């Protein structure tokens, strides 16, 4: 590579890096208006979905009561069913970091992490903020003679997907425990009206599907079901009406991280210092190659942050942060592995560029194995229901892939760019110490 080409490539990659760094760490308002509105940009770090341990979460405290007419003495079992039902409903909406616990004798407390915006907060509050018992009527006015079924009659609620020749069609199917009873109750009905408590839930544009209310099931279609997510939300809302205990929200709101009010600030500060220490180590040990490695690691960090905030299911708990630190250490180790081997070759009277190229080629397998181990752990952790383990799993899956790209592909390019500028001098990389070239 010529010096001129090398310099222009360095300038190009520096500009890309600056853009990535701004996108990763800087919030700003766009200097121009779109349709009269000024929009603001949130950086990659802000967009990371943080778990409830290091990020703010939504907390709802419910008072628990037995429904009218139910005199089950084993309320603890019903509590457990209610808690697991509530948890799966919220997780079904895509909010995976959910913890739920019993509080005193008559309360349960739900906490949902990964809250990025007010929209997330209002989505969850709408869904489970004040669950009411569901009931089905053949008329829009609630009366005993129009009653078809209550929540206790419902067996399951599923979302079915079909194709009408031009579009995907989504149907929410409600199945009942006693199909015959429902068939009789709906024999002369053309519509079904769903109530949550005393409030009519059936909205306009909603109709019964082809199957209608036949065979003891109710198929609900709506123009509002534009995709699977909206149909699933609707199904989840119905599921909240099927919980076996009455829940009354007595407290609801955002709560600061459970690891302390400013946990995320401390996490950010400590990680920044840690990264800085890594750069200093590389620069002191390998001088110019250390600067080049730091340049490479900045790409590693920003691309990783971009991917972690882009994948919707990724959430970062404290264990995810520790996993990030481990991945960063492994990223440094991979670069050190390349440099150390190049140093050995250089001290065996090999030209620096030959030593670097041979080292990169021969270290590739090693680097792949180290990162493969991380990815295997990451893959295994994704199947674990524990949120901190899953958080760690995503980090171990995403960051090693980025590391493979940056350490094997980008670093190769950077070294090729660096060689013409350095005049092939190993002394500037501390390669001369302790070798034949000393």
């Amino acid at each position, binding site marked *: 590579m010529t010096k001129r080409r090398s310099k222009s490539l360095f300038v190009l990659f520096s500009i890309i890096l600056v853009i990535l760094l701004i996108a990763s760490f800087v919030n700003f308002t766009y200097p121009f208006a779109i349709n009269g509105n000024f929009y603001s940009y949130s950086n990659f770090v802000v967009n990371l979905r943080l778990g409830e341990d290091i990020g703010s979460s939504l907390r709802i405290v419910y008072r628990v009561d037995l429904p009218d007419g139910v005199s089950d003495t084993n309320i603890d079992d019903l509590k457990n069913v209610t808690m697991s039902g509530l948890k799966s409903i919220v997780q079904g909406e895509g909010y995976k970091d959910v913890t739920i616990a019993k*509080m005193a004798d008559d309360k349960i407390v739900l906490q949902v992490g990964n809250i990025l915006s007010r929209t997330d907060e209002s989505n969850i509050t709408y869904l489970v903020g004040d669950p009411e018992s569901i009931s089905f009527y053949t008329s829009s006015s609630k009366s005993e003679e129009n009653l078809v079924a209550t929540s206790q009659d419902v067996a399951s609620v599923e979302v079915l997907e079909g194709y009408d020749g031009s579009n995907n069609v989504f149907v929410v199917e409600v199945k009942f425990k006693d199909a015959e009873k429902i068939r009789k109750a709906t024999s002369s009905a053309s519509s079904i009206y769903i109530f949550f408590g005393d409030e009519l839930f059936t909205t306009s544009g909603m109709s019964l599907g082809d199957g209608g209310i036949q065979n003891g099931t109710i198929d609900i279609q709506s123009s509002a079901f534009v995709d699977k997510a909206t149909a699933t939300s609707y199904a989840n809302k119905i599921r909240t009406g099927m919980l076996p205990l009455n829940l009354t929200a007595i407290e609801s709101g955002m709560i600061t991280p459970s*690891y302390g009010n400013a946990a995320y600030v401390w996490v950010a500060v400590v990680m920044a210092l*840690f990264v800085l220490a890594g750069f200093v180590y590389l620069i002191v040990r390998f001088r110019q190659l250390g600067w080049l490695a730091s340049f490479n690691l900045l790409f590693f960090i920003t691309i990783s942050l971009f991917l972690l905030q882009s994948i919707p299911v990724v959430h970062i708990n404290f264990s995810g942060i520790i996993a990030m630190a481990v991945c960063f250490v492994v990223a440094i180790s991979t670069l050190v592995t390349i440099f150390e081997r190049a140093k050995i070759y250089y001290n065996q009277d090999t030209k620096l560029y030959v030593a670097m190229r041979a080292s990169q080629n021969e270290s590739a397998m090693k680097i792949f194995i180290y990162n493969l181990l991380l990815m295997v752990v990451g893959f295994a952790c994704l199947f674990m229901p524990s949120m*901190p*383990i899953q958080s760690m799993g995503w980090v171990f899956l995403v960051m090693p892939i980025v590391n493979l790209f940056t350490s094997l592909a980008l670093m190769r390019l950077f070294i090729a760019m660096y060689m013409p500028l350095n005049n092939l001098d190993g002394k500037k990389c501390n390669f001369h110490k302790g070798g034949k070239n000393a």
Partner: protein
Amino acid sequence: MLNRNFTKSNKEYFNKNKIALIVLLAVLVVGIIVVSCFGFKTNFETGSHTEFTVAIHTEDSKTIRNYSKDIEAIVKKQGGEFDTISIFGEGDNTKLVVRYLNILSSDKQTAIRDEIVSELKIELLDVSDFSVVSSAISANDYIYTALAIILLVAFASIFAYARYNGASAISIIISSIIATLGFMSVTGILRLTVGLSYFAMLVILNLLVVLGQFMMFENIRDSNWLANKEYSNAINGALKSNRAKMFLISFSLIVIGLMFVIFAPAALKYVSLNLMFMAVVLLFTIWYVVPFVWSVFITHTKPRLKKNKENKVKEK
């Protein structure tokens, strides 16, 4: 130093490192006794605990933060294993949620309430009843953590057997078991708090123990095959350089933990202490356990690498 002159070198190695190995054995025995008698010390994520809320009738965020600090000082003074304070809600509905690691006695609850009422401006505050909150952790968390570790170790040992030799595979299995038990023992003996992130740290510990050994095996492979060193020299050189590498990795994790312990809020300090001791266990495993296990099992393993070396020479 290890040597392929098996029995003699193993004895030498044991004599040199016997203090470390005896300490390891003692920690494991004491740890198992402590954990089986007293269990682990849980936090609000893993065990039942007491919490109460203090409603603050003001919208001024600075006043809320000041009350938070004052209440933290009072609950710390009163003792009872305070964990953390979180700010819940906003505006005039703001509450401080005060969590403990354990369940408080009713006397202690009364003392804390009285202290808050007498020390602070009560017209702005409303202290709720103290509630016991059960653990949010399920049995699945324990099972799946174990499963993740088993999957990792199984994959790594099979891979190591295929790429290196049987001793490598056995070394991975045994050192992982010892590291896991060692970390759990240290946690039990020092009464470190076990939260949800502790399970993740167990997985990370095993990952690093495996990774450290893979680095060592690759080093041996290189030294023996590429640099044409004798097998025993290759092993000794790799053990030495691996100790230095793993020291740097462990040291960097200890530094992270230390920074959290010094600067971060109370709850984060507890989990960071775990991180520091995890790094110490990692270092100990790589420095003392892995060479010992190697010295035992390498004697029964054919030097497959030697074959590779010969092949390589022929190719050349």
